[in-house]
């Protein structure tokens, strides 16, 4: 440790104030603080500080994503071998999945972090850790066969337009990862929907029917999958969103560490269940009579409400706001699924829509707090008059 520290101190010199590479200090700082929590001591305010920081928080989210990611890697291989009728072992499936998914993760991180570093150097602020999570989320919610250049373009769009244009980490209105997906969804629809994109290599092999469950339902076809399969996640879909079970493991980590808001998760669940139930009673078509509990375990709903809707920056920020925001995410998700067959998966659009409305929800919640205070003042004025 001392050896690394000593060498780092040597390398650090030109990056410090007055050094030749002073401008690139944020980039150096990002690497240095990755290895070591800095020796910075408090100058203003409280003299002692909690051990938690943004890096620790973001890394915890990444840990929570791991179960879903590993299952996603396995499922990619599993779907490929099953659909092409080949014999395979667990290792084969993992290897095939890794072969498909690792390049996506690498592209997402390299492209996204390059932009982040660029902006940090240009603006002279430290590199924020937010992209560590975004960069992993993006490949996890894309179809596996998406060309890497499309992924790169989506990442560029998300980081530049959804994030940096608004002022960087902490300032964005929309969840950057979902913005990347929405961009790809509307820019390259043929690669983002249909029955040939959800299973690895499906477009090259005849006879594969790799439609997602929601896609089949929207097209009025029958479903061959059981609820257990939907919950376990051995179904076609975006890379890592299929398994409700593994998403729930991640949710448990997020809830235990207190990083994600349980209010949002719970209220989304309530919202979606209620609307799902309502449609079950109505039951006018195949989609409406799709059992409400299946709605919760199919598609990206679980992944969306656990990892996306709870993004603290783009979600509502007040306690009461979080309840309303989450509830409406759930409601709109099922509404879009049922009423809009062009968008079989509603969770992405539901969350993005509520991202846009989150500041409005907060505004009214805060306004009610302000009004309470104002009322007290008015009462006082009447008394004194």
């Amino acid at each position, binding site marked *: *440790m001392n050896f*690394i*520290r000593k060498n780092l101190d040597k390398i650090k010199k030109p990056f410090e104030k007055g050094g030749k590479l002073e401008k690139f200090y944020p980039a150096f700082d990002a690497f240095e*603080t990755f*290895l*070591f*929590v*800095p*020796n*910075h*001591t*408090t100058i*203003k*305010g*409280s*003299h*002692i*500080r*909690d*051990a*938690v*920081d*943004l*890096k*620790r*928080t973001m*890394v*915890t989210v990444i*840990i929570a994503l791991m179960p879903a990611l590993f299952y996603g890697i396995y499922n990619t291989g599993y779907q490929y071998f099953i659909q092409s009728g080949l014999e395979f072992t667990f290792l084969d499936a993992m290897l095939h999945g890794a072969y498909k998914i690792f390049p996506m993760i690498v592209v997402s991180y390299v492209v996204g972090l390059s932009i982040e570093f660029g902006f940090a150097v240009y603006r002279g602020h*430290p590199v*924020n*850790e*937010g992209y560590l999570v975004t960069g992993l989320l993006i490949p996890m919610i894309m179809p596996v066969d998406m060309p890497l250049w499309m992924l790169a373009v989506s990442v560029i769009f998300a980081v530049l337009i959804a994030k940096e244009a608004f002022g*960087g*980490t*902490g*300032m964005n209105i929309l969840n950057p990862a979902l913005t990347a997906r929405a961009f790809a969804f509307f820019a390259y629809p043929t690669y983002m929907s249909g029955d040939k994109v959800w299973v690895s290599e499906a477009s090259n092999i005849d006879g594969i029917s790799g439609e997602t469950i929601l896609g089949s339902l929207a097209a009025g076809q029958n479903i061959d999958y059981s609820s257990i399969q939907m919950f376990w996640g051995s179904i076609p879909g975006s890379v890592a969103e299929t398994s409700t079970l593994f998403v729930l493991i991640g949710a448990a980590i997020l809830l*235990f*560490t*207190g*990083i994600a*808001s349980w209010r949002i998760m719970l209220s989304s669940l309530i919202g979606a269940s209620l609307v799902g139930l309502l449609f079950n009673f109505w039951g006018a078509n195949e989609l409406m009579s799709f059992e409400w509990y299946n709605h919760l375990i199919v598609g990206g709903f679980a992944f969306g409400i656990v990892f996306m809707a709870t993004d*603290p*920056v783009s*979600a509502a*920020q*007040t*306690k009461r706001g*979080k309840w309303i925001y989450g509830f409406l995410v759930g409601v709109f998700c099922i509404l879009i699924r049922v009423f809009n067959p062009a968008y079989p998966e509603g969770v992405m659009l539901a969350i993005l829509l509520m991202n846009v409305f989150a500041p409005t929800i907060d505004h009214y919640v*805060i306004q009610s*707090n*302000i009004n*309470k*205070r*104002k009322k*007290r*003042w008015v009462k*006082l004025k009447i008394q004194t008059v």
Partner: protein
Amino acid sequence: MSKDISIKNGAKLDLIGLASKEIEFAKDSTTHAIYPDDFFNLKPRMILKEGDKVKVGSPIFHDKNDERIVIVSPVSGYIKSIDRGEKRKILKVLIYREGDDKTNHQIIENKKLTKANIISLLLESGSWPFIKQRPYNIIARPDKLPKAIFVSTHTTAPYDIDYDFILGERLEDFQKGVSIMSKIIEKPVTLTVTANRQSIFSQIKNLDIINVKGKHPSGNLSFQINRINPINVGECVWVINPEDIANIGSFFKTGNFDSTRTVGVSGETVKNPKYYKAQIGSKISSMISKNDVNNFESNRYINGDPLTGTKVDFDGYLGYYNNIFSVIQEGDKYRMFGWLPFKDNHIPSFSRTSFSWLFPKNKKVNTNLNGDERALVITGEMEKFFPMDIYPMQLLKACIIEDIEKMELLGIYEIIPEDFGLIDYSNTSKIEAQEIIKNAIQLMLKEVG
């Protein structure tokens, strides 16, 4: 009958090295100092110059905005030096201690004391700066009477002291102070005590006693006032530190300014943490010497508690108001991969990304920032440590953009920087909340007054 309030939200931060209940007289300090920065928003104008003789209670400087507010010398002797910084700002007035001359004030008989008498005596004697005014926590303005006077003996900050212990022998002074102050507002002074605990103050007359239950920051008066008698636009209340009530009482008994300051000296590296009876502006070395602390060089010395105090050199002096003196180890060391969750659990953390809650006895703290400042990302965490009907993060944001109207509406009148101490400590983005609020209040004072 006493009233009870329970303040939810907050956290207890027990640190190793709390002063034990043992009191010792500090050595006589050869020099004393007054730091004008201890008086928020006061612009000092010197009355005396270097070399001038002073008695206990001689005015040294007054406030440029209100010449009636004077800061007096806590000891007798002469002005040794006036240290100035940039733009000739006065940093410190140093007084060399010699003899024991006192400025004696004629005290009118108790029954004849009127409101106006009391106020002018407090002003003349230099006891006035003991009274602070909310909103803003500035020295009270003599022309504006408060709707209530608050005194809190319910203490919750880390290393906080026990007023029952230090005022046990000064109950008479305390009673006198309470009676005098209640004369000004013509109603009882509001005193808060820790709930479910026998308090020596229950025998004091002219008091409205309120039992408070809660973790830190429920000991901060802002949160108590908000629950008991909230401050509205245009209103003000006064707050006084319990020991200063006794000092005011003592002045009205003897006619001499009383500068007693009992200080709890706490810290993990302090060999024998305990209380010291000193005076305002005493030299720190009159209480503890270099041999009384371990790792002398690598400690930080703080006037006040670790969350809200002011850093001071070991050669420095006690602050004007604080009853706490803390010693914390400097944390200027690197920690490899310290950002990994569940690593370094010896550092106390309120976050569940650390197992520190499993080791409640391990409370070793140092001054490391444990990260670096980042944009505000995590929401809902500040509310956990802010037991008031105020949205702390939204208020902070309004303060950052200097939107005065929004600051007013979001409740700036009800809070002071110290209330954000625990938010400073706990927030993930390492935002300097106290500093932001302090600047905002300064702006309010400038723009609204």
